[in-house]
């Protein structure tokens, strides 16, 4: 097998993996702070993808521009979901939270099916077919831009948590729920804010992803599982871990597709997940609880 082909596939895996990473970052942030596993994560991702196709079909809006209104809508939606539905559940047992989000996921994926039907949808912009040549390596422009958008969004989120007061307050809630309450933080508001921010990650990742794959309703549950795999591999609650996990899964999927069979690619992801859970359950970059 020619080395260029392997290298091309490898690079495309890294770029796709960064978009996966941004999606998983949303899940990781929500779990790290609210301690609720968002079982509707992939379903939210497909909603963002559908939204991008709709804006493209109606207004010829480029998915990178559509990111802004979609992200804003997702922030409000995520905030509302946490404030209205999930906040009353944070003291309930895990299986109860799980059921709540599974119900939300069932509604979302089937609402998509009702509205858009089972056929695949996509967007077609001219730079999707173009590529940049670096020596003998070809990089798809669409994939490159998608990865860049994911990186910028992730960096912005890192900066928000590192440098802003609200970001610090959210981290305080994650570290010590009771302590955060004692010093007078409005924990429920901060939880809702966090869910809103996690949803923004999903929105941006979805708009970027729609340049790479066609969207169908069953993609939702598949992305939910993918996001779990990435977050566990990288370390639940670790932001860097989510990006690293995304890249690892992106690369392993790409290589498995090249060397074995495209349909077997997620078997490797799940195999990797089982290995990480057993050997390093806190994930590659996670802290021990």
């Amino acid at each position, binding site marked *: 097998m020619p080395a260029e082909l392997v290298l091309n596939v490898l690079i495309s895996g890294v770029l796709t993996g960064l978009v996966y990473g941004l999606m998983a970052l949303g899940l990781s942030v929500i779990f790290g702070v609210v301690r609720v596993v968002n079982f509707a994560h992939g379903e939210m991702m497909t909603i963002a993808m559908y939204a991008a196709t709709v804006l493209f079909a109606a207004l010829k809006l480029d998915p990178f521009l559509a990111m802004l209104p979609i992200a804003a809508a997702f922030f409000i939606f995520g905030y509302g979901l946490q404030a209205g539905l999930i906040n009353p559940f944070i003291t309930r047992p895990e299986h109860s939270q799980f059921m*709540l989000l599974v119900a939300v*996921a*069932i*509604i979302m994926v*089937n609402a998509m099916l009702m509205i858009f039907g089972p056929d695949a949808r996509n967007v077609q912009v001219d730079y999707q077919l173009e590529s940049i040549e670096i020596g003998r390596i070809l990089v798809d422009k669409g994939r490159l831009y998608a990865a860049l958008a994911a990186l910028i969004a992730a960096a912005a989120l890192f900066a928000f948590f590192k440098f802003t007061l609200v970001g610090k307050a959210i981290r305080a809630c994650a570290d010590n729920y009771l302590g955060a309450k004692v010093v007078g933080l409005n924990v429920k508001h901060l939880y809702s804010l966090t869910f809103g921010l996690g949803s923004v990650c999903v929105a941006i990742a979805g708009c970027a992803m729609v340049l790479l794959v066609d969207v169908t309703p069953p993609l939702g549950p598949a992305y939910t*599982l993918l996001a779990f795999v990435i977050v566990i591999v990288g370390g639940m609650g670790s932001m860097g871990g989510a990006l690293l996990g995304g890249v690892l899964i992106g690369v392993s999927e790409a290589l498995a597709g090249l060397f074995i069979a495209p*349909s077997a690619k997620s078997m490797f992801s*799940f195999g990797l997940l*089982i290995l990480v*859970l057993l050997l390093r359950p806190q994930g590659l970059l996670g802290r021990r609880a």
Partner: protein
Amino acid sequence: MSRASIGLALLAAILVALPLFAGNYALSVATLILYFAYTGQAWNVMMGFAGQLSLGHALYVGVGAYTAGALFFHYGIGPWVGLWLAILLCVLLGLTIGFLAFRFGISGVYFALLTIAFAEFTRIGFDHLAWTGGPGGMFLRVAQRDTWDIANFRGPPLMYYYAILLLTAGAFLGCFLLLRSKAGYYWQAIRENEEAAQALGINTFRWKMLAVAISSAMTAVSGVFFAFYYNNLFPEQIFHISRSIEIILGPIIGGIGTLFGPILGAAILTLLSDGITDALGALGWEIPGIKQVFYGLVLLAVVMFLPHGIWPAIARRLKL
């Protein structure tokens, strides 16, 4: 006799006599309800009794179904042999997952995700296994529908109804006895507070493993039933995470950890799903997905307003 046992005897009598006045369609719905009741009871042993959340029980249904199904398909070996092999394989599989998880201290959400990972891993594995037909599925020969061929477990729908009724009743009785045994009390202690149970000298590892073994063995049986009742097996259908969720909805809606919860939950969900289909059909709203949206909304309402499930609320009202 207490009011509870009178009610139970009445229910049993109705279920035994049901084929006398129910048509074929009603019988198939009843079979489906009992199938979910039995499988939900099996899951309940692990989660409801011992507190170990498995989101991958489709794994045992699938492995059980494929084991007995493949033996019959390839070698004509009947399910009475295949059943034991299916149970053995599923128990080994369950114990392996349990051993890995409990030894390495994986619990809660992480344990749940591990069970999903094993189920999905196996699903994709079966998709690439030519011996069982891969993604194209495996089809068992549909035999004579009018004679009761018990040796090969082929026969009319009535036979399957009584088989699953027997299984459900057996599981109910078995779980009733288990809950009042030493194991049952240890499990409940582990479920409520594992550290405290350990401090009392309970070997929590061993008792959790027992729960996994019993639960996976019971679920293997429902897999064998599934294979011979439906006669066709696809990895995409039988191992999929949505199947695992379907299995556990009944006990959660009905009342987790209760004996009657899985049965009530299965009945409510199956009838609800049917009722929604009929109602939407009558209204002429036959858009793909609309049924599941209603289903999700009802689920949401139950989870929000009846956090312990429906059965505990009814039992309190009836003073059982």
